[in-house]
Every structure is written in structure tokens, then in C-alpha cells.
């Protein structure tokens, strides 16, 4: 059995990021075929804002999720956990 290396708080935050990330995929695809739909754009922009806030919050607390972010020494992107080590069944 794997040791649970993420706190409940960290998992919930990551889950929320995944939720907004998915919602953005959906508005992205919708907007590709409905580029003038202002309601959809508003929805997309509100998800985008929330997503970026959550990402910044997560990365400030737990380290980079994106390799494009800056890092102190040593390179922090490779820190645990790897995606497959996260057990979302236990939150």
C-alpha cells in the first residue's frame, strides 16, 4: 500500500483545479464553433480567472504544476507526488 503523501487540503485544491481545467476544455470547444457567443465567453472568462487563481494558490503552497514556472534550487518540478501516486478515492 502506498503512503499517502498529499494532505486532504492539497488534494481538494488539485481536484478543484482539475474541475476548472475540464470546464475550460468544454467552453474552449464550444467557443471554437460559437466564437461570438457572449454568454459562453463570459462563462469561459470566469472559469479562466478562477483557474488561474487556483493555480497560483496551489503553486505558491505546494510547488510548480507547470514546467514553465520559475524554480529555486534544486529544480522543484520533479518533486513528489507524481500524478499516478495520488489516490483521489481517499480524500
Amino acid at each position, binding site marked *: 500500500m502506498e503512503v499517502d503523501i498529499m494532505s486532504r487540503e492539497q488534494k481538494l485544491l488539485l481536484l478543484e483545479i482539475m474541475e*476548472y481545467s475540464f470546464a475550460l476544455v468544454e467552453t474552449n470547444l*464550444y467557443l471554437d464553433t*460559437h466564437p461570438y457567443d457572449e454568454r459562453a465567453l463570459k462563462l469561459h472568462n470566469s472559469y479562466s480567472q478562477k483557474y488561474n487563481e487556483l493555480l497560483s494558490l496551489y503553486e505558491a503552497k505546494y510547488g510548480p504544476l507547470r514546467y514553465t514556472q520559475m524554480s529555486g534550487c534544486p529544480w522543484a518540478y520533479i518533486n513528489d507526488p507524481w500524478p499516478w501516486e495520488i489516490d483521489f478515492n481517499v480524500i
Partner: protein
Amino acid sequence: MNYDYWDRNKGMQLARAYVPFQRLNEVFDPKEALMKGTLFPELYMPYKRRGEDLNGGRYYE
């Protein structure tokens, strides 16, 4: 093989597919959307489980 295909179907149309244009309606909140696999309630069409066959597999319809 298919030599007489066009002759047989002379005057008939091949199948045509169409997709109605989606219009934005209510949306699921992001949490529910991730769990259901779509943000749009009108596109949420889960397969219903019909039963289990003898080999342990599952049928969906």
C-alpha cells in the same frame, strides 16, 4: 465486385449526416461537469447498464 453498385442505386442519394447546432443553455458546475464528462446537461447521455453476461463482462445499451 461493385461493378453494378452505381447502376443499382441510380437516382438514389447516399446517406447524409447532420448535427443540429448546439445552443448554450444551463451548464453543470465544474465539479459536476468533471464527474459527468460534460459541462452541458443536454449532452449528458450516459449508457445504462443492462446486465452482466456469463463471462463477467457488462452490456451497455
